[in-house]
C-alpha cells in the first residue's frame, strides 16, 4: 500500500534527464516530453518535425524508462528499438533517465575538416569590425559557440597562418553551407589588411572547422553572458539557438564596447530580447563614450555590472559564458570569483585569447 502511495506521490515529481556524452543533466517536468524539456533549458538537441514522424531527435536510452506518446515503431526500425533507441519528442519520462545523443558525441569529438569557402558578401558592422559571409563547398555541422580557422590561400608571405573566428549565427539542422564571421581589423596585420583593403567578394578561403568546446551547457540555472568587441559572434549564435528553442532560463547579456561607434548587432539582439521578453535582457555598456553624448544607456566597464542588482538574478547559482579581449575576461573572472560563481560554471574559450588580440605574426 505504502509502495503504491509512494508511486502515486512520485508521479508528480519532476524527473532528471542526463545526456551523454557530456553528462549534462536537466529537470523534466511531468507534463513535458524529453525534447520539450531540453528545449526549455536551451539544450542543443537535434530535432525537426517534433511530432514523432521524422526521427531527427532519435537518441539511445541508456538508463531508465520512458512512455512513448506515439509508438516509436512508426519511425524507428525494429533493430533500433531493440537497441534501445527512442524519440525524444514522443518520450514522457517514467523516472530519471540517461540518454545518449550520438550527434552530440560527433559534434564534441568530430574532427575538423577542410572546406573551400567562397566569400559571398562583406559588410562593415562597426568602423573596424566586418561581417564576412561565405558559402562552403558542402554543409558543415557545428554547435553554436564553436569557431573555425580561416586561411587566406593567396600564396603571399604572411598569410600562411590561419586566424580563428566564431560562427556568428546559430547552425541549421543538417549542417550549414552559408556561414558568417565577425572579423576585427588589426592595423598593420597583413591578414586583416588584405580583407579590409577592398571588396573581397568572390575570393576563395580555406576553412577548417568546427573547433572549440564553447557551447551552452544544459541546466536550469540563469545564464550570464559577457562579451566585448567581436566576442559578440559566438554569444549571438548561442542566444539565437536558445531563442529558437524558446529557452525558459533567465539570460542577461552584458556587452561591453568603447563608444557608440563600436556597438553593433543591436537590432539583432533587441529582436532576440523581444522574442524572449521575459527571459532575455541585453545590456550594452560603453566605457569611453564622451560625457554628454546622445548615449542614454549604461556607462563604465562591464565588470561594474557583474552584480545581482544589474543582472537581475543571484550570481552564485548562475552559469557564465565569456568572450572578449583577454583583459576583459581576466577582470570579469576576478569579479565572478568574488561573487562565488563556481569555476565549473564559468565557460570561456581558451582560443579566444589569441583570436581577440589578433596578434599578427
Amino acid at each position: 500500500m505504502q509502495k503504491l502511495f509512494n508511486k502515486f506521490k512520485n508521479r508528480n515529481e519532476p524527473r532528471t534527464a542526463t545526456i551523454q556524452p557530456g553528462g549534462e543533466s536537466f529537470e523534466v517536468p511531468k507534463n513535458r516530453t524529453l525534447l520539450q524539456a531540453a528545449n526549455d533549458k536551451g539544450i542543443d538537441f537535434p530535432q525537426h518535425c517534433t511530432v514523432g514522424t521524422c526521427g531527427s531527435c532519435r537518441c539511445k536510452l541508456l538508463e531508465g524508462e520512458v512512455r512513448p506518446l506515439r509508438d516509436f515503431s512508426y519511425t524507428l526500425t525494429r533493430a533500433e528499438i531493440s537497441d534501445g533507441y527512442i524519440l525524444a519528442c514522443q518520450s514522457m519520462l517514467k523516472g530519471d533517465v540517461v540518454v545518449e545523443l550520438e550527434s552530440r558525441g560527433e559534434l564534441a569529438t568530430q574532427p575538423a575538416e577542410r572546406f573551400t569557402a567562397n566569400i559571398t558578401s562583406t559588410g562593415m558592422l562597426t568602423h573596424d569590425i566586418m561581417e564576412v559571409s561565405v558559402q562552403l563547398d558542402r554543409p558543415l555541422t557545428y554547435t553554436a559557440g564553436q569557431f573555425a580557422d580561416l586561411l587566406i590561400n593567396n600564396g603571399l608571405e604572411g598569410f600562411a597562418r590561419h586566424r580563428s573566428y566564431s560562427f556568428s549565427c546559430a547552425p541549421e539542422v543538417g549542417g550549414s553551407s552559408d556561414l558568417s564571421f565577425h572579423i576585427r581589423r588589426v592595423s598593420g596585420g597583413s591578414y586583416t589588411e588584405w580583407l579590409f583593403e577592398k571588396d573581397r567578394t568572390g575570393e576563395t578561403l580555406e576553412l577548417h572547422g568546427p573547433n572549440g568546446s564553447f557551447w551552452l551547457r544544459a541546466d536550469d540555472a540563469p545564464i550570464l553572458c559577457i562579451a566585448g568587441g567581436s566576442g559578440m559572434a559566438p554569444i549571438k549564435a548561442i542566444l539565437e539557438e536558445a531563442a529558437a528553442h524558446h529557452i525558459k532560463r533567465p539570460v542577461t547579456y552584458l556587452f561591453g564596447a568603447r563608444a557608440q561607434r563600436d556597438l553593433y548587432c543591436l537590432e539583432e539582439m533587441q529582436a532576440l530580447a523581444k522574442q524572449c521578453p521575459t527571459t532575455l535582457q541585453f545590456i550594452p555598456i560603453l566605457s569611453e563614450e564622451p560625457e554628454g553624448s546622445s548615449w542614454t544607456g549604461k556607462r563604465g566597464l562591464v565588470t561594474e555590472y557583474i552584480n545581482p542588482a544589474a543582472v537581475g538574478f543571484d550570481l552564485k547559482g548562475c552559469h557564465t559564458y565569456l568572450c572578449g579581449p583577454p583583459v576583459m575576461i581576466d577582470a570579469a573572472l576576478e569579479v565572478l570569483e568574488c561573487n562565488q560563481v563556481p569555476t565549473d560554471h564559468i565557460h570561456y574559450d581558451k582560443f579566444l585569447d589569441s583570436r581577440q588580440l589578433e596578434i599578427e605574426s
Partner: protein
Amino acid sequence: MSSAIAGNSGPLSFVARVTTLPHLTFAILPVVGYLLGGGIYHWITVFVLLALMFIDPIIGTDDTNHDEADEGALQEKLFYRMMLWVTLPASVAVTIFGHWLLTQTSLTTSETIGFLLSLTLATGFLATTAHELCHHTQPVDRLIGDLVFTPIFMCDFHIYHNFMHHIHAATPIDPGTARYGEKIYPFLINSIVRKTRMAWQIEKKRMADNGKPTWHPSNLMIRFIVLQAAWLGLLVALFGLWSIPICFVQYLFPRLLLAVGDYLEHYGLGRKQLPDGSYEKIRPNHAWDDSTLVSSMLFCQIDRHSDHHTNVGRPYQILRVMDEAPRLPQGYLTMIPIAFIPSLWRKQMHPVVEAYYDKGEVIPYAMPDALPEKYAAMVPEGWGQTLPD
C-alpha cells in the same frame, strides 16, 4: 471575434482570432435551417458556402504573422486546443440530428438534397480540424481527432498523412502530390485509393516490426474500422438502413475535399534527390501557399501550407505566411472549383508554376511529356526513380 478571445495583444491573423468558430457555425447551420422552417432553408449551408466562395477573392488575403515574441505563449495556450476539442460534440450532434431528420421526418426531394449537402459540408469541413488534432503531440488531442474523423469515416487519413504525406510530399512516393499536367479526376481516384492502402501498409509493417500479426488489436487500422463500424451500427440501430447511404455521402465529400486540397498544395513541385537516392529535406518552396482570408478560415489556416510542412510541429494558430514559398494565384475556395475544369486550371496555374520553376528552387515534377522542353531539361536524369520500400 476580437483578439480578446485569444487574450493576446500582438498581431494575429484572422484565423488565429476566430479559430474554429467558422467550423462550429457550419455545424450549427443545418439545425438553424430546420428551425427556420426547412424548405429552402435546408440549403442554408450550401448558400453560405457559395456566398463565401463569391466574397473570398473580394476580401483578399490576410498576411498577418504573429510576433515571434508571442509565439511560445500562443503555442502553449489551451484555448486553441479547446476550440478544436469542441468540434467533436458539434460533429457528433449535427450528424445524429441530420440522420434523424433525413430518416425520421418527411422531407421533399429538394429538401432532402439540400439538407444532405448541408450536413455533408458541416461535417466535411471538420476534417480540417481533425487534421490539425492528428498532428498534436498530446495523445488526448489525437484521440479527439480520430473521433472527429469517425462520423466522416476518415480515421485512416491520420496514419497516411503523418507517416507518408509529411515524410514524402513533393516526391513520387506520395500519392497526395500532384504532377504538373496531371488531370484532377484520375488523381482523385488514385490518391484516395492509394492513401487508404498506404495506411494499411504502414500499420501492417509496424505490426510485423513489433512481431505481431497484422490482425492485432494494437493495429490502428483495425481499431479505426471497429470504431467506425460501431458508429455506423449505432446510426443504423437508431435510424434504420437509410443511414448507410447518408454515411456514404458523408464519407465521400471530405475525402474529395482533402484530396483536391492535396492536388493544389504541392502541384508540380519536386524535391531534389541526394546522391544516396533520398530526397532533400522539405523546404517552404515545396508547397503552395495561400493566405486568402475566407479560405484560410474554412481550412483552419492549413493553406499556410509551406510552414505547415516545414515545421510540422507548429499548431494552426502560429502558422506563418512564408516569403520564399510559391503562391497560389487564388484562394482555396476559388482554386478548388477551378481544379475540376482542367483547361481552366492549366490556364490559371501553369504560368504561375512555370514562373516558379524559372527560379530554380524546385525540381519540376510532371506527367511524362507534359512539361515544356525548357523545364524538362531541369529534371535531372533518373530523378524520381527511387521507389518506396
